[in-house]
C-alpha cells in the first residue's frame, strides 16, 4: 500500500517543483551575468497570470491549436507518473523506456503541428527547424537506450535505476553515454547551444517560433509542459546514469536522503546548463548536425567500449 503512495507522491513532487527548477536555472544565469534577475518563483507567477488572461486565436487555425496545448501538458504530466524520481523498485509494471520517450515525443509532434496550424511563416519555420533537429536527435536516443539495455539488461527505467544504483564502478563507456544523453537533453529542450530560449528574435527561434501565436491559458499549458519536460529529461539522466542513493525501500530516512541527493544532483545539472548558456554563443543552425553527430558517435563508442571492457 505504502509503495502506491510513493508512486503518487514522487510525480506530484516533480510536477509541482518543475517551474521552480526553471526559476533556479534562470536565477543562476542571472548571477553569472552579474545582475539580480527575476525571483526563482517567476514561472509560477507567469503561469498564473497567463491562465487568468484572455486569449487570441488566429482565424486561420484549426482544432489543433485548440486542443494541442492541452495534449502537450497531458503528455508531460502522464510521463511524470511513469518514471522514478527518488524512489525505485527492482520490478515495475510500468516505466518502459520506449513508452516514456515516445510520450515525450508527442509533445514535440503536437507543438510542431501547432506551429504549422497558425499559418504564419514563423510557426512553419520553427516547426521545420524543430523537426530537422529532432530527426537527428532520435538516433542518439536509440543508441543511449541500447547502451542502458546492454548495461542493465532491461528496458524498464525503474529496473535500470535500481540496477545502476547498486553498481559500484562504471566504465568510461558509461560516462560517454551519459554525455551523449546530456547533449540529447539540450537538443530536446531547446537549450543553448542549439536554441536560445531567451531570444526575442523570431528569425533565429526554433522552439519559441512554434508557439508565437499562442496566448493565455494555452500558452501557459505549453510553457508548463516544456518546463516539466526539461525536468523529466534531467530526472531520466540522473536515474539512468547516476542513481546513487535512490530509495529502494519505504522508510522515512532513506526517502529523505534520496530526496536530498536528487535535489543536489539536479542542481548540479542546472548549474552545468546555466554555465553553458552564459559562456558560449549559440551554434549556427547548420552546425547543429555536427554536434548531434558527435553525440551519436560517442553513443556508439560507449557501446563498443562497454562490450570490450
Amino acid at each position, binding site marked *: 500500500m505504502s509503495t502506491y503512495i510513493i508512486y503518487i507522491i514522487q510525480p506530484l513532487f516533480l510536477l509541482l517543483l518543475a517551474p521552480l527548477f526553471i526559476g533556479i536555472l534562470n536565477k543562476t544565469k542571472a548571477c553569472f551575468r552579474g545582475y539580480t534577475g527575476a525571483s526563482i518563483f517567476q514561472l509560477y507567477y507567469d503561469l498564473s497570470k497567463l491562465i487568468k488572461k484572455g486569449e487570441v486565436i488566429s482565424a486561420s487555425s484549426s482544432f489543433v491549436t485548440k486542443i494541442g496545448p492541452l495534449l502537450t501538458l497531458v503528455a508531460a504530466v502522464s510521463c511524470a507518473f511513469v518514471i522514478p524520481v527518488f524512489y525505485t523498485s527492482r520490478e515495475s509494471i510500468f516505466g518502459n523506456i520506449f513508452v516514456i520517450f515516445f510520450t515525450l515525443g508527442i509533445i514535440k509532434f503536437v507543438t510542431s503541428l501547432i506551429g504549422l496550424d497558425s499559418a504564419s511563416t514563423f510557426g512553419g519555420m520553427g516547426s521545420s527547424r524543430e523537426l530537422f533537429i529532432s530527426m537527428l536527435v532520435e538516433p542518439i536516443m536509440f543508441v543511449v537506450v541500447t547502451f542502458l539495455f546492454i548495461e542493465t539488461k532491461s528496458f524498464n527505467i525503474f529496473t535500470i535505476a535500481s540496477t545502476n544504483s547498486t553498481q559500484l564502478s562504471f566504465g568510461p563507456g558509461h560516462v560517454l553515454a551519459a554525455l551523449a544523453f546530456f547533449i540529447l537533453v539540450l537538443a530536446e529542450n531547446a537549450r543553448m*547551444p542549439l536554441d536560445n530560449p531567451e531570444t526575442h528574435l523570431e528569425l*533565429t527561434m526554433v522552439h519559441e517560433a512554434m508557439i508565437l501565436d499562442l496566448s493565455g491559458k494555452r500558452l501557459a499549458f505549453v510553457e508548463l509542459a516544456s518546463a516539466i519536460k526539461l525536468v523529466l529529461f534531467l530526472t531520466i539522466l540522473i536515474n539512468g546514469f547516476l542513481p546513487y542513493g535512490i530509495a529502494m525501500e519505504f522508510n522515512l530516512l532513506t526517502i529523505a536522503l534520496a530526496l536530498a541527493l536528487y535535489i543536489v544532483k539536479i542542481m548540479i545539472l542546472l548549474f552545468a546548463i546555466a554555465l553553458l548558456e552564459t559562456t*558560449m554563443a549559440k551554434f549556427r543552425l547548420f*552546425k547543429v548536425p555536427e554536434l548531434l553527430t558527435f553525440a551519436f558517435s560517442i553513443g556508439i563508442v560507449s557501446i563498443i567500449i562497454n562490450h570490450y571492457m
Partner: protein
Amino acid sequence: MKINLLEKEIKNINNRAETEIKNNNELYINTTFEEVKNIVGILMNNLRLVFVGEFCIQEKSFIINIILTNRRQGYFVTVRYNVTDELVSLQDFVPQSNLFEREISDLYGIKIVDGKDTRNIVKHEIWQENVFPLRKDYAFGSKVKLASEVSRYKFMRISGEGGYQIPVGPVHAGIIEPGHFRFSATGEPIENLEIRLMYKHKGIEKICENINANNLNLLFERVAGESSVAYAECYALLVEKLIEWKSTDEVKAVRVVLLELERIYNYLDDITGICVDIGYSYPPKKFSYLSEMIHQLCERLTGSRFLRNAIVPCGINIDFNEVQKADILYTLKNIEKRLNNIIESTLGSVSFLDRVEHTGVVYNKTANKIALTGVVGRSAGIEYDVRRNFPYEIYKEIKTKTNTETAGGVFERYKLKIAEIKDAFIFIRKALSLIEGDVVKNKPEIILQDGLEAYATVETVKGELVVYGKTGENNTFDRIYFKTPSFTNWNGLTYAVAGEIVPDFPLCNKSFNMSYAENDR
C-alpha cells in the same frame, strides 16, 4: 584634382555649363535636362567623383541637385538642372540613385524618366495620392490624410520549388522602430531581401524650413537620437560655414570630446547587440553596463544622457572646467581596463568567432558600387572617414589614420567598432589636453543672410552625414536636405545577407545597426 582645375576641366568639356565655386570647397555646375546625364557620367567615370545624393529645391521651378564629392581633396560638386515635372534617372550607372529619385518623386511629384525602379518609397499605401509635402504650396503644419489611395507596393518575387517569402515587421519583437523586411528564401538560405522603410516619415526637412535658425539645433538633434551630437555638430558646421565663423580651439576640443563620447556609447551598444543576437550572453551584459556608465557621465556633463543641447552654432552650451575634465578622465580610466578584458574574452571564444567570421560579407566591389560609408564601408576596404577626408574641428591634428578591414563581414565590423572605441579614448584624452582653462557657456545669437548655401558633413556613428542648407528670409532656412548615412547604408544589408541563412539575419542586421529614424526623417 583640385577644385579650380576641375572647374576649368568642366568648361573644356562643356562650355554651356555655368560653374561657380562657393565656400572654398563647393563647386556648383548649372546644366540642362539633356546634358546632365553626360556631365555626371564624365565626373564619375573619368574624374573619379563619388555619388553622394540627389535632392530637389523649389524656387521658381524645381531644381534637381546631384551631389558628388571628391574624397581625396575634400570638396563637393553639385550638378543642377531645372525641371518642370520629370527628372532624369541615373539608375543605369548609379545603382543607389533610385532611392533619391523615388524620394524626390514622392515628395515633389516629379516623375522619373526611364528609371528601372519607380515605386513609391516614402508614400505607403495609406497615403493620399496627390499630395506633395515638400512643395512650397503645401502648408506647413497640415497633416497628410489617411486615405489609402496609393497603389500597392510590388515586392520582388522568386519562383520555383521550395521558394517562399517571410514577411517580418513593421512591428518587431524588440522595442525598436518600424521597418518591413521581405525575405525570399528557399529553405533556410536567403535568396533575396527587400527592405521597406519610411513608416515614420516625420517631414523634418519641412519643419526645418519653418523654424528660426537659433533653435534649429534642437531639431537637428532629434533627427536621430543616437547621433544627437553629430547632428548638432553638423548644424554648427553648416552655420559657421555660412557666416564664416572660426571657433576657438577650446570650443573645438570640447566638441570633439562630446562627439567621441557619443561614439563610445553607440559602438558599445552595437557590439552588445552583436553578442546578444547570437546568444552569447555574458559579455553584452558587461558592455551595456559600461555603456550606461558613459551615459551617466554624459548626463553629469550636459544634463542629458544623449548630450543634447550642448553643441550650438558658434559656441558651446555647457560650462567646461577642471571638474568636468577630471570626471571624464576618471570615468574613462575606470572603464578602459574592464572593457579590454571583456573584449579579449570575446575574441578568445571559439563559439563566438565561429558565428561572426565569414558571415554577412559585403565585398569591396559591391560596397564601392553602392557607396557604403562609415564602419560598414570601411569593413569592406573603403578607406573613407569624414574625419580624415573632410576634417572638421581638431580632427586634422588628432586623427592620423583611417581604420579599415578588407573582408567586409560581421567580424570585421565588430573589430572596427572596437577600434573606433579605442580611438575615441585616445581622441578624448588628446582633446582634453588641448583645453587650457575654463570654457564658458556661450550661445551667441545667429543672424543669417538670405540666399546663401553650403554643405556640411560629419562622420556619425553610422557613416557619412551630408547636410545641405540654403538660407531664406527671416533668419530661417529655405531648404535643408539631409543625406543621412542610413538612407544608403541600409541597402548594404540586402547584399550582406544574400546567401546567408535566415537565422543569421539578425546578426548581420546588428552588425550594420542602421537607424530607422534617420532614414525616415
